[in-house]
């Protein structure tokens, strides 16, 4: 499922909203999530999961092409922990549905 398919599915369930409004709403939600995470704020959605940042310690890296060492400073990476409902639902139907894009 892509973002545009998600928008269409949402629009079908909210017939009183124009497709354009659903599109704007999804854009707004995505931007809020990006905004929160890039300012270090956690996101907690009951039944879905939580997003937070994980710290990657500074390390000495290596350019695989030249073998040159490079000092890499600490950085944060986004992390998602699925909530219980999502975990259970995804696992419950695994025998019925193959994984698809």
């Amino acid at each position, binding site marked *: 499922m892509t973002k545009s398919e998600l928008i269409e599915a949402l629009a079908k369930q909210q017939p009183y909203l124009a497709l354009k409004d659903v599109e704007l709403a999804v854009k707004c939600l995505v931007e809020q999530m990006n905004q929160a995470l890039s300012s270090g704020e956690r996101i907690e959605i*009951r039944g879905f999961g939580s*997003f937070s940042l994980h710290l990657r310690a500074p390390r000495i890296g290596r350019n695989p092409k030249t073998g040159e060492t490079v000092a890499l400073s600490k950085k944060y990476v986004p992390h998602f922990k699925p909530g219980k409902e999502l975990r259970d639902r995804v696992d419950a139907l695994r025998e019925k549905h193959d994984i698809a894009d």
Partner: protein
Amino acid sequence: MALTKADFAEKLFEELGLNKREAKEMVELFFEEIKAALETGEQVKISGFGKFELRDKSSRPGRNPKTGEEIPITARRVVTFRAGQKLKARVEAYAGTQ
């Protein structure tokens, strides 16, 4: 303070002028729709954010870390999230609190 569904709904109300009921419903449906897709084996790619992927794990031996007792971990399907380039870059630019 973590961001919650109520914060998302408030923003939809403020920025898009959805009424409070519509805003709340939109937020609920947004996450429910993603869950429903994943539940039926469909991976979900939100461009500009990231991709929710599914993985089938085979069973493996596990251990109760407290008692040391061996317990098999059953085969299961799990959800993983891979942040997109844009989100990764924005988060990397975050210097942290200290």
